[in-house]
């Protein structure tokens, strides 16, 4: 090997090492702050409260970009270009702090079960009801949506009607328990949203439920 070849080999090795080293470490976020020119329109996809991140398409002048990673951002420049990147948490706070702070509390759901053939809650549901009242008390202008569900025995239209009847029954019970009627809406989801997925025409008590969404 000539001295030159040795040097070249050393350079290649060094590059390989650098690459290896570079790959072994997490990729640092792009340093260019995507959100900083505050005169431009900006869209940022945010992680959900459960840590997952959805997706968003951004279309400008016939060009579509899909954002699908946490804090993925698209900025539309005054010249009409779309610039994408990752916004930092600080940039998100700076650009959207006031809007984010004005988010209403998220709806929360409770499942209530009534004693068979009675207007009376099961003992477990009595305790759940206390939590429903506590949740109502801490919310601005609280409302309830009572959502009825069925199992998959029967036709879809039959179950739609049945789930609505169940929801109305529970609404009436809640009114008797002191919740103003004008604060309660009802919905019937029929067999569309089973708690326990089953084949059609399978009886499943856990799917015959009424959900109370406090919002």
């Amino acid at each position, binding site marked *: 090997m000539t001295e030159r070849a040795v040097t070249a080999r050393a350079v290649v090795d060094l590059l390989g090492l650098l690459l290896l080293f570079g790959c072994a470490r997490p990729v640092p976020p792009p340093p260019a702050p995507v959100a900083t020119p505050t005169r431009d329109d900006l869209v940022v996809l*945010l992680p959900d*409260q459960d840590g997952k991140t959805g997706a968003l398409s951004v*279309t400008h002048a016939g060009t579509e970009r899909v954002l699908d990673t946490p804090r993925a951002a698209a900025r*539309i420049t005054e010249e009409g270009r779309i610039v994408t990147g990752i916004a930092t948490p600080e940039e998100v706070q700076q650009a959207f702090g006031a809007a984010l702070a*004005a988010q*209403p509390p*998220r709806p929360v759901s409770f499942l209530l079960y009534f004693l068979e053939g009675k207007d009376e809650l099961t003992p477990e549901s009595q305790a759940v009801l206390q939590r429903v009242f506590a949740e109502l008390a801490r919310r601005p202008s609280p409302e309830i949506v009572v959502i009825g569900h069925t199992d998959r025995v029967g036709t879809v239209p039959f179950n739609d009607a049945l789930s609505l009847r169940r929801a109305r029954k529970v609404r009436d019970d809640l009114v008797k328990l002191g919740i103003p009627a004008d604060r309660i809406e009802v919905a019937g989801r029929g067999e569309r949203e089973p708690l326990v997925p089953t084949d059609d025409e399978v009886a499943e008590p856990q799917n015959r439920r009424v959900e109370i969404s406090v919002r």
Partner: protein
Amino acid sequence: MAGRWRRALLLFASGVTAGFFLAVLLVHPARAQDVGQIKVSKGAVSIERSGQKLPATVGAKVQPGDVVKTGGDGSVGILFVDASLLSAGPNSVLAIDKFVFDSTTNQGAFESTLTKGTLSAVSGKIAKQSPDAMKVKTPAAVLGVRGTEFAVRAIGPGD
């Protein structure tokens, strides 16, 4: 005889009328146009509805066609019937262009426009059921919402 017939006819007519009103009530529950409610309101916030300016206090209802505006010190948070949530920061103009929701199938359409200002959004049952059924527009872009949380800033023409 004629009196009895008249009475029977009257009874029949009033029954039909009552039935009709009952049917209307069942098909169109009261407040059918209300698609959301103001849950957070700080500083100057108003709702513009068919040329009228309404106060956007906590508990005020939001309807399709409404334009929600915030002042320099204002911010507002709205919860929609499909559990979608929109909140706007100061100096914002947010129009609720379209909102249709079937609480049985969860199918619907939700379109809004942020003319200027800042918006944070959490999509609800409409977008979960049908991706791209929820759209947010700005003067420069159209956003198709596949879920769930995002934020938008629009620079208005006069800004």
